[in-house]
C-alpha cells in the first residue's frame, strides 16, 4: 500500500502542492497528468524525498514518515523511505563515467554492499529484461536516448524497490525512441511492478496506467481509470486539458 495523506509542499510562500491525498495498491500503475507547473513532478519527488514535503504523511509499505514545518527530517528516516523507491528521470541521468552494466550495479554494490559477481548477475538479468544486454559494456554517451532510458529503468529496478517513480520518462525522446521505452514500461506493468509516473504522453498513460490522477494548480482535480479521464472526464478543467493533449498528439 502506498499512501499520501494531506501532502503540502511550499517553496517560501508559493504553495506547489495542496492537501494531496492518494491511496494506491501495490501492483498498480498510476499516471500523474496535468499541465506543466501543476505539481506532478514535485509530487513524484516528494514520494522519494528529493523534495521534503512541508507537511503531511507518506507511507510506503511498512515505512511511514510524518512531516511538519518545524520538524527536521533525519537522514536515516529519509534513507529508509527512499530505499522503497526507484526513480527514472526525464533526462535519464545515467552516470556517464560508468558503463551501462556498471550503472545498474552501482546501487547494489555501493549501497547494498553486494559482492560484485552477484550484482553483475542481477544487473545482466535486468538489462536483458529491458532489452539492453547486448550493450552492457557500452558507455552511456554512445547510446541513443531510448537505450539510455532503458538502462536507467534497469538501474532504478536493481535494488527491487517497492515502487518505481517515473518523471516524464518519454518526454526527452522522439516518438520512435519513446515507443521502445513505453514498450518496456508496459511489460513491467504487466509483470506487476508498482509504478507512479508523471507524464504528458497520452499513449504512455492510456497504455500502461490503471489509474490517472489529474493535477492542476497543486491540487488533485480529478482521478479515475484512464478511459474515463481521457474520454469522459467530469470536470471542465480536465476536459480542456485532455482536448489539448489530443490535439497535440493528433488523436
Amino acid at each position: 500500500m502506498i499512501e499520501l495523506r494531506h501532502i503540502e509542499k511550499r517553496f517560501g510562500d508559493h504553495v506547489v502542492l495542496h492537501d494531496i491525498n492518494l491511496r494506491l495498491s501495490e501492483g498498480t500503475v498510476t499516471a500523474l497528468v496535468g499541465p506543466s507547473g501543476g505539481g506532478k513532478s514535485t509530487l513524484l519527488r516528494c514520494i522519494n524525498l528529493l523534495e521534503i514535503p512541508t507537511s503531511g504523511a507518506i507511507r510506503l509499505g511498512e515505512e511511514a514518515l510524518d512531516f511538519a514545518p518545524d520538524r527536521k527530517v533525519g537522514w536515516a528516516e529519509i534513507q529508509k523511505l527512499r530505499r522503497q523507491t526507484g526513480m527514472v528521470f526525464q533526462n535519464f541521468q545515467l552516470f556517464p563515467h560508468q558503463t551501462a552494466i556498471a550503472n545498474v550495479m552501482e546501487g547494489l554494490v555501493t549501497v547494498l554492499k553486494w559482492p560484485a559477481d552477484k550484482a553483475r548477475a542481477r544487473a545482466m538479468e535486468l538489462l536483458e529484461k529491458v532489452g539492453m544486454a547486448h550493450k552492457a559494456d557500452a558507455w552511456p554517451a554512445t547510446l541513443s536516448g531510448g537505450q539510455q532510458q532503458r538502462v536507467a529503468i534497469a538501474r532504478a529496478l536493481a535494488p527491487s524497490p517497492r515502487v518505481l517513480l517515473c518523471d516524464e520518462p518519454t518526454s526527452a525522446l522522439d516518438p520512435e525512441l519513446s515507443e521502445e521505452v513505453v514498450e518496456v514500461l508496459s511489460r513491467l506493468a504487466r509483470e506487476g511492478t508498482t509504478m507512479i509516473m508523471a507524464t504528458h504522453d497520452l499513449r504512455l498513460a492510456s497504455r500502461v496506467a490503471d489509474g490517472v490522477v489529474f493535477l492542476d494548480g497543486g491540487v488533485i482535480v480529478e482521478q479515475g481509470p484512464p478511459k474515463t479521464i481521457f474520454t469522459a472526464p467530469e470536470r471542465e478543467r480536465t476536459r480542456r486539458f485532455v482536448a489539448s493533449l489530443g490535439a497535440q498528439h493528433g488523436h
Partner: protein
Amino acid sequence: MPPWLQLMTDSLPTLLWAALVFTIPLTLLSFTLGLALGLVTAIARLFGARPVVAVARFYVWVIRGTPLLVQLFVIFYGLPSIGILLDAFPAALIGFTLNVGAYTSEIIRAVIASVPRGQWEAAYSIGMSWSQAMRRTILPQATRVAVPPLSNTFISLVKDTSLAAAITVPELFQTAQRIVATTYEPLILYIEAALIYLALSSVLSALQVRLERRFSRYGGFLEART
C-alpha cells in the same frame, strides 16, 4: 668538447641530484598534500556551515593575495621570532602546500559545482548517502574536468619550487647558484637549470595528456589535438 659543454656535463650530475633529492620530492609532496587541503577547502566552501565557509574563504583570500616568496619568508625567517623554528625543507613544504591548497580549492570547487544537479539526484535515488554520491558519482566526473587546470597548478609548482632557494633549501636552482659562485659562468649554468625545469614540466605535460586520454574514453567529444 667545447668548454661550455664540458661545464654543463660536469655540473649535470650535481644539478640532477639536487632535483632528485629536493625539487622533485618538494613538488610531489606539496602537490599531494595541497590537493587534499584544496579538496577539504572546496567542500567546506560548498557545503560547510557559515563559520566554516568564512574560515575557508579567509584562507584562500590570504594565500592568493600575498606573494609566495613573502609567505616563505614569513614561515622560515619570521616564525622563529615567536618560537616556531622550522628547518628549511619543512618550511618550504608548508608554504607550497598552503599555496597549492588555496589555488586548487578554487578549481575543485568549480568542477564539483559543474556536475549537474541531476547526477546528485540520480545517486540519491538509488539510495546513496551524500558521501557515497560524492565519492562514486560526483568526484569521478569532476576529476575529469579538473585535469587541465590542476595540471597548470602542478607545472607552476615545479617551477615555483625554485623560490625555496631563497630560504636556503639546496634545491636545483640554489645548486646552480652555488656552482656559478665558483665558476663565474651564470649564462651556462642558469640555462642548464632552466632546461632541467623544462624537462620536468614536460614530463608533467605528458602525464596530463595520458590522463586526459584515459578520461576521454567515456565520451569526450572535444579532445586536445596532439
